[in-house]
């Protein structure tokens, strides 16, 4: 038995039409229904469509104008009208430079994928999002998946309140 993506809606925010077509083809092979793959070519269009359709997974390019993908991610995580601040967001970018990865992490992405990518690396990123979800931190300065990936010893009292998601 394998994942069945037929029921999920995916929003691809990508300014390059050829790359959108390619991603759409790959997602189709992953069993996402064609009519459930949505496109957006800009940050504003992406947020508008997300608010309208409430997708289950977002694949968001870094985009231009600087860091529009970053701004979109922050908007989804913090805007009061966002239909789901916890939605998984996989960011794609042409650079794996540590500064860019940290920017994306601090914006609240769930995963980061460097282009050009292989089918296996895209699948691995999606699988990690599905199987290893992280708790969400909500604070004035940051909203997104817990940025602490490594388990390091911590001796101070943990003051964070841990609560289940509100229904």
């Amino acid at each position, binding site marked *: 038995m394998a994942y069945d993506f037929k029921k999920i809606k995916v929003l691809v925010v990508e300014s390059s039409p*050829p790359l959108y077509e390619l991603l759409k083809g790959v997602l189709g092979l992953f069993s996402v229904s064609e009519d459930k793959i949505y496109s957006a070519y800009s940050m504003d269009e992406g947020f508008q469509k997300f608010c309208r359709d409430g997708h289950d997974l977002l694949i968001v390019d870094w985009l231009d104008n600087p860091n529009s993908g970053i701004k979109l991610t922050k908007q989804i995580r913090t805007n009061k009208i966002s239909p789901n601040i916890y939605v998984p967001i996989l960011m794609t970018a042409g650079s794996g430079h540590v500064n860019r990865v940290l920017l994306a992490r601090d914006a609240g992405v769930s995963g980061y994928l460097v282009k050009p990518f292989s089918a296996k690396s895209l699948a691995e990123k999606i699988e990690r999002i*599905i*199987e290893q979800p992280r708790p969400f*931190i909500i604070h004035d300065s940051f909203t997104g998946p817990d940025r602490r990936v490594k388990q390091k010893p911590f001796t101070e009292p943990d003051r964070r309140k841990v609560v289940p998601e509100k229904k």
Partner: protein
Amino acid sequence: MTEESEEQKKLARAVSVVPRNRLKEKVGSGGFEEAVLVKAQTLLKENKIDFEPTAQIFVNLLEKKIAEVKSGSTVGDAAIEALLYPLMQLKSQGSLFQYHFITTISDNLITFLEKVSIIDTDVLDIAAAHRTALHIVLATKMKGGDSKAGKDLHDALVDSCNRYYRARNI
């Protein structure tokens, strides 16, 4: 007992939420089938999507940005960012559409621009040479990564960057 600083009070307001894993609820378990991954990789490797118009837009944009930096209308870090944007797009997309030399040539120039501290006329000449090479790759529809002409182009550009590094002890 020490009083909490304002900073500590602020940090204390962070809340950790465990959201429902809605994605897993919908897709189930079991991972990706190997056969699906093979098909998807074949699609990536052999797709016939027309990348040339998009690539040409970015190569033209690179040319425009080089001219702007040459004229002095864009300077400093903004100049490097302006050149990097079209290069990142070409580097990240080229090989997805079988234009491997678009990716490697763009990547070479990205590495070069990230290493140099200032953009002088030699840097711009090297950028222009890369732009010409990218144009040649597109104009001759040089797909794949085996072409001798492509390798010669790439090697010549790498040499030009290395000469720059040596001359300036980078």
